[in-house]
């Protein structure tokens, strides 16, 4: 097996770990939320759980289509007390931004690949949109606006 092929699968495993870890973070953040916007904010993180899991699954399928079994390596211990929506959102923004950067870095490695290039480009579009939505909500200071936008899209 060519080294380049192994490296690509390793990188896909890392991307899958990013998504799976983000899923668990959102899952836990949901229960830490406090404040008047809690209900709407919980819905945002519920969507986050579903979407990140879908992304992890999509990457796992790509790994399988390359003839490999996905390997998931996560080291995670989530503590912390109650959190305000704005702070939770700032954490989510960090996580989404890192996922976006990871996809962008990876794109250069798969340019010309018949399937992966298209897949990674789509992921970049989705993550870019997520980051943009979160940035807008941070500026607006209300989860309701974000939910409205998510429900429309």
């Amino acid at each position, binding site marked *: 097996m060519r080294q380049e092929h192994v490296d690509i699968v390793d990188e896909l495993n890392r991307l899958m770990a990013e998504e799976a*870890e983000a899923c668990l973070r959102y899952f836990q953040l949901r229960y830490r939320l406090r404040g008047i916007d809690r209900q709407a904010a919980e819905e945002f993180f519920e969507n986050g759980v579903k979407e990140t899991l879908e992304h992890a699954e999509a990457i796992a399928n790509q790994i399988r289509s390359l003839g490999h079994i996905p390997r998931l390596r996560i080291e995670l211990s989530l503590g912390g007390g109650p959190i305000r929506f704005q702070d939770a959102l700032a954490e989510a923004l960090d996580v989404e931004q890192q996922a976006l950067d990871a996809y962008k870095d990876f794109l250069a490695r798969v340019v010309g690949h018949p399937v992966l290039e298209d897949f990674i480009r789509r992921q970049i579009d989705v993550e870019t949109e997520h980051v943009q939505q979160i940035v807008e909500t941070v500026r607006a200071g209300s989860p309701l606006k974000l939910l409205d936008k998510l429900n429309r899209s």
Partner: protein
Amino acid sequence: MHNVGRIGRLARDMDLRPSFDRPALFQREAGFFFLVRDSSTTCLTCQTHVPYANRDMETWKEFEANELTHSAAHHLLAIYAVGSKYGGWARVSDIARQLDVTRGSVSINLRALKKRGWVKTDEHHMVALSPEGTKIVQVILAKRVVVKAFLVNVLGVPEPKAEIDSCKVEHLLSDESGHRLVRFMRFLSSDPITKKVLTRFRTFECECPDSRACAVCQGRCLMDELDRAI
């Protein structure tokens, strides 16, 4: 990390908690076990006695209060290691690779380090240690080196094991103990007599008396207890 003997394990299994009503029992906190007798507390491993009235200053609470967590220490060290190749600046992706964790995880942990003023970031999401962060890293590395040297050169612990153990305690060791350890190591290497003592120690066979009473163990055989912990 402390090794826990039979009594400690018993206390852990029973999940015993302190009570002022009973004369002797065990307290379990943060993975450490203390034998609580009337008005004093004894760490089962360190043999240190702490007046019960001063419980706020107990060892385990110092560990809990240590603002430099193991994870934070490793993040600072990773930034230092990666950054040293690129003029002090490191990318989140490289830090994540160095630590074998996700970028998201690094990013979240960096928030706490930034809040404490130990790291700084630029507009390109590059990360560097602040002067305060650099100072912390230097202190950690100094402690790691001296602890490892003590474990390898004095106690004769194999190097890979010493590397792991020094990594575990590097950020927990107090500055005072670090200084004393350096002094002790210098003392050992400065005097021909101490060098002889060290050579004798390396050939010393530790045989416990049948009575299980010696100047070190004082009624309980620490060797037996440590053997059981393995």
